[in-house]
């Protein structure tokens, strides 16, 4: 993986074409951790099921985090679960992405003020790429979040970003 | 270098190196998996010697059966990976005498054998002659062995039964 580990300081036409190619591969086959937390997980399952069909985007649930690219935090993250979520995330191989689905995962949702047991937003333990709002979000909203993530991946680059 | 030479040296090296590791490694699982490579190399050499049936049987029985059984035994036995295997010599004098004798016999055989130096030709399969011999000349022994195995099987099953 020598090529990928190195960060290029200059942009050029070859690298940007390679970039596009590699990004295309990553964005069109985002395998998901088969992992659901709360009521949003039902909606996530509906997204995988026949009517919305996550597989159209190349998303299939894999049982083990070692073979996954994206983890969808679907629902309330309790403190007890937060450690598990973090461990699952750490077990995934790079490059990995996180979709935070629903109000509870975004910022604690209904429990953001008085929930003694709920993590106030999953971004306190793992870096979130896309926040999908909704309580729970419609399957379309999740698909839209996934497409936003794909856009984000499309704009990733091997070129080292200049410090702005 | 001939293709057959190439293959022979490959399998010979595989056999010797992995056999060396089987003896020297302290990890019992490593020993088992190196044994797999040894069996595999020996099977390859059998093929080059024209004993193709023997090679296949070696693979099926030793790799597919006995080795897997050994691995099962090792893996399902409690704490076997923590057992200290003694690798230092304990009976130096008797062992060296025994090894010396064995080595002497081996070397004597090596020196006395008249090695054929004819180039390797593609061997004819031994399958049909073996089948004919088993079914015609040695049919009685063959059936006897089959009965023996059957008895062993039934015995194992009756021992394994709970009631």
């Amino acid at each position, binding site marked *: 993986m020598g090529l990928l580990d190195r960060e290029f300081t200059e942009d050029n036409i070859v690298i940007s074409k390679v970039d596009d190619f590699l990004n295309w591969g990553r964005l069109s086959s985002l395998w998901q951790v088969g992992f659901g937390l709360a009521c949003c997980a039902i909606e996530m399952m509906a997204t995988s099921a*026949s009517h919305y069909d996550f597989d159209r985007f190349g998303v299939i649930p894999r049982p083990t985090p070692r073979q996954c690219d994206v983890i969808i935090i679907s629902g309330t993250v309790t403190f007890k679960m937060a450690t598990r979520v973090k461990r699952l995330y750490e077990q995934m191989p790079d490059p990995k992405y996180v979709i935070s689905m629903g109000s509870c995962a*975004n910022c604690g949702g209904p429990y*953001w003020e008085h929930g003694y047991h709920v993590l106030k937003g999953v971004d306190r333990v793992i870096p979130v790429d896309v926040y999908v709002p909704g309580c729970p979000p419609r399957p379309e909203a999740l698909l*839209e979040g996934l497409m936003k993530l794909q856009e984000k991946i499309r704009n990733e680059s091997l070129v080292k970003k200049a410090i702005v | 270098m001939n293709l057959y030479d190439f293959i022979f040296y490959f399998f010979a090296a595989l056999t010797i190196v992995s056999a060396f590791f089987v003896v020297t490694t302290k990890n019992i699982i490593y020993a088992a998996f190196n044994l797999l490579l040894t069996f595999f190399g020996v099977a390859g050499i059998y093929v080059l010697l024209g004993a193709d049936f023997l090679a296949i049987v070696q693979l099926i029985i030793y790799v597919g059966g006995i080795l897997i059984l050994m691995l099962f035994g090792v893996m399902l036995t409690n704490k076997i990976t923590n057992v200290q295997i003694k690798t230092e010599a304990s009976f130096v004098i008797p062992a060296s005498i025994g090894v010396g004798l064995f080595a002497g016999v081996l070397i004597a055989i090596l020196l006395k054998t008249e090695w054929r130096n004819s180039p390797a030709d593609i061997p004819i399969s031994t399958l049909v002659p073996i089948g004919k011999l088993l079914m015609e000349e040695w049919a009685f022994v063959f059936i006897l062995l089959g009965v023996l195995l059957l008895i062993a099987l039934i015995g194992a099953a009756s021992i394994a039964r709970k009631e």
Partner: protein
Amino acid sequence: MQEYFRNIWQGLSTVLTGMKITFKHLFVPAVTIQYPDVKVPLPERVRNRLYVNMDDCIGCDQCARVCPVNCITIETVKSVPGEDLGKTSNGKKKALWVTQFEIDIAKCCYCQLCVFPCPTECIYMTDVYEFSELERENLNFNFVTLSKEEILQKKENYAKLEAEKAAQKAAAAKPAVANPEQKPTDN
């Protein structure tokens, strides 16, 4: 023995039946809605993203108080006499400048409770559901129409008014209580 053969028969026949069903479904047209190209029409009273029509908002704070998760933050400044804030669409006269009206949609639980108490029906739920964001701060929607300078000015105006009122009060009360040092602490 009979049981044994019945088992075999049952096993084979049920597998074949199942395979027949799945094979039929291979040719059933898919029910999939191809989302970005095709969108299902939403039900009429669907509850999705909140929207506030600031033209109608009178800053009554009722929606914020009823919100079960406190995701609405409202701050108002009283208007000074002479300012015309205009009227709402159902004829109510506005009396407050709304200097802050934020809905943290990330916290919102889409219960629609804020919609009912609104006297001017200015807060309502739209059918927009595709608004995922890359940053959480972007989910904190600010509906205030006034610019920052205007807000500052409104606050100043009100402060001035208060100060004037206080000064008047102080002037009226001066003969009674001769204690000018307390004036600054009043504000």
